[in-house]
């Protein structure tokens, strides 16, 4: 691993994220809004060098202000993924919102 390289992290409930350890991601378990917000703050510190942080939709839904702030910045990227209980459609909804804001009309 080059020193200039970045790492990947995943934040979510324990059951959903542990398996990602096998892929070599840094897993942070969080159950509540406070824990999730704290985990995000920790991970996004520049010296931690995380380029992409995946977060489960369940948690992202609890902390909409924190997650919205990541939309403006390039690194790290915050990407929503479904948790073990399935997709909530939040990731898609946010994408639709972006598209709508940019185009001024509903795209899909």
């Amino acid at each position, binding site marked *: 691993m080059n020193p200039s390289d*970045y790492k990947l992290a995943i934040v979510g409930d324990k059951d959903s994220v542990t398996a990602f350890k096998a892929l070599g991601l840094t897993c942070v378990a969080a159950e509540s809004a406070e824990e999730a917000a704290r985990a995000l703050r920790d991970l996004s510190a520049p010296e931690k060098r995380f380029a992409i942080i995946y977060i489960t939709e369940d948690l992202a839904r609890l902390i909409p202000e924190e997650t919205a702030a990541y939309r403006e910045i390039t690194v790290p990227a915050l990407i929503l993924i479904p948790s073990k209980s399935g997709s909530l459609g939040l990731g898609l909804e946010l994408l639709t919102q972006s598209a709508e804001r940019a185009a001024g009309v509903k795209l899909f």
Partner: protein
Amino acid sequence: MATAIKPTRMELNRLRARLKTATRGHKLLKDKRDELMRQFMLIVKENKELREKVEERLAGAMASLSAASAVMSPEMLEQSLLYPKRRVSVAVKYRNIMGVTVPEYDFHTEDGGDALPYGYAMTSGELDDAIVGLTRSFTDMLELARIEKTVQLLANEIEKTRRRVNALEYMMIPELQSSIRYIRMKLEENERGNITRLMKVKDAILAEAHGYDK
């Protein structure tokens, strides 16, 4: 608006120069917005499809994982995943789309030979399925990160640019135009006043020189 403007020729020239700049800026920003929109449209659909694909695949892997956790004890499950053999790191490069810096990721995984970080003796087949499923969808997850970040950043920039275009088109340019019109009218009015005065003075002088009686 036109209240605080001095109706002078100098002010008129200044406003004309500003109008010219504003019009040119408006055209440039409009072009920028259109090109950003085009780039955005190219990838936003891809983004949606990729997200749907990733969500579907992950749901499958997560289902296998729940099955595994039903068969295995939680301690055993945690232990099997405790020491990952694989490491993933990413080099971030930046690409410039119309002045928007978007990230591009270059991944390399250090594979410990095998994706599965545990022996087969104490683990269930469902766990293998889950890990293999996750590994497969991982490339898509990485691509999703890149494309989704790009879409977010482009959307922000488009919104900003559109606001500027509108501010120029609906506020600044009309305001400048009306100020210019105001000054021009005022100058013309002064000119007419001047001519009238000259004509009157001429009449007065003629009356005095020739003794005209009106």
